[in-house]
């Protein structure tokens, strides 16, 4: 797999016209197509726990809810551990999911993958993929899923910041060290979590008509001291 190909290939699965209307739903559908899954969903963290923000279908939303309500399953484990959780065959005995596995089977889930949506310590939620039958999750699928999780995380941050999604603008700024340093500085300055600081940074850049990297550089240089309206 050539360097940036996977990133570009995954972005191309997301419907750009739909993304302007509902970027999260567009990302969800893109993930479903890219991984060839029966369903896909994006759960976000809220004060009351994980909530399904977008599901490609009812089947995925119900499977999410089963795990959140029971407090067990790959979705919950991915959120609490910050690590990807793979369950290729729900029917296979697994000590980790003794309670929830039968319920997932009853929902029609054969296999699933849950990937945390995060950047560093900023945790936003979980991206899930569901298959109707047991699945052999290959290294390629796994790597595709991780890249999609990065893309969805950035789309979520932009969406939460109230920014319109323009795919012509390059995605990928969350990986920049300057951006993450400035996120840390904003989190400390405003006494908020790094996830919220990430969204604030994006919103500030959007309002100022600046790129995130340019604004981050100015914050690190302490040229931007106060954000009056944040």
């Amino acid at each position: 797999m050539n360097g940036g190909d996977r990133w570009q290939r995954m972005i191309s699965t997301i419907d750009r016209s739909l993304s302007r209307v509902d970027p999260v739903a567009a990302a969800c559908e893109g993930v479903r197509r890219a991984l060839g899954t029966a369903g896909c969903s994006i759960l976000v963290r809220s004060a009351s726990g994980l909530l399904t923000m977008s599901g490609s279908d009812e089947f995925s939303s119900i499977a999410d809810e089963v795990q959140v309500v029971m407090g067990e399953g790959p979705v919950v484990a991915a959120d609490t551990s910050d690590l990807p959780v793979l369950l290729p065959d729900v029917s296979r005995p697994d000590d980790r999911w003794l309670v929830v596995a039968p319920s997932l089977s009853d929902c029609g889930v054969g296999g699933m993958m849950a990937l945390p949506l995060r950047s560093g310590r900023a945790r936003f939620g979980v991206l899930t993929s569901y298959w109707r039958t047991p699945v052999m999750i290959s290294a390629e699928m796994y790597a595709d899923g991780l890249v999609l999780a990065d893309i969805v995380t950035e789309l979520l941050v932009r969406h939460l910041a109230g920014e319109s999604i323009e795919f012509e603008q390059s995605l990928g700024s969350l990986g920049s060290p300057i951006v993450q340093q400035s996120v840390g500085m904003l989190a400390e300055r405003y006494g908020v979590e790094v996830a919220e600081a990430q969204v604030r940074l994006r919103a500030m850049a959007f309002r100022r008509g600046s790129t995130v990297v340019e604004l981050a550089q100015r914050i690190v240089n302490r040229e931007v001291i106060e954000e009056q309206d944040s």
Partner: protein
Amino acid sequence: MTGPENQAAPAWNALEIVSAIHIAAAGGDLVDVLDRVADAAARLAGVRAGAIYLGTGDRLHLVGGSADRQAVLDLMNELANAGPCVECRDSGVVVVRWLSVGTGGAQEPVVGIPLSFRGEMLGAVGLICEVEPADDSVIKAQALADVAAVLVACGDPSPDSMSRIRAVRMAVDGRVLLEQASGMLAERLGLTPAQAHQLMRTAANEIDMGLAEIARAVVDRRVSNELASHFRRLSARWSGDQAQP
């Protein structure tokens, strides 16, 4: 590249490689170890700055940088998505390109050295040089790239591609966490992020905590009294050093 300091001190060069292997054998925080290996690679090759990038069939991500932090960030900004590091990761061979890196404007050689484990490409080592690198410098840096590859790949003992992808991912996440912590600590103590990074690393050396553990404590606002007192003392010492004529 083949400066007098390198030619006159072969024992030092050997010591760098032995030291990197020792770091690898001793284990510890991957993000800290990769920083040290990048630093060792830059010094060993006698170049301006060095960085380690990881990415399996994905964009490259900076996971380790030499001590010259600003140069590393410049390098990262310009080389993570295109250039010799990406080229060498995709081709599997060393790539040298003359580029204008950072804000200086002048072109200088940038070397991309593949970072692979048992034929699987994990990323690249990038070196910003001041002159065309000599073959032996590249060979030395390649040796440290191999050390870095073993470090990353052996983070998870399962010898399969999935575990390698996971290991790369964990290294990248660890780096992002470290940058966030650097920013928070910088704001808290009135330092630059580079100084905050160095502060955490020095504290990690002085007390029984890993760098990643310290970074997590900073971001989660769970810094112990002992660690906070280390931060204050180190920060005050640096302020005092800077105040001296």
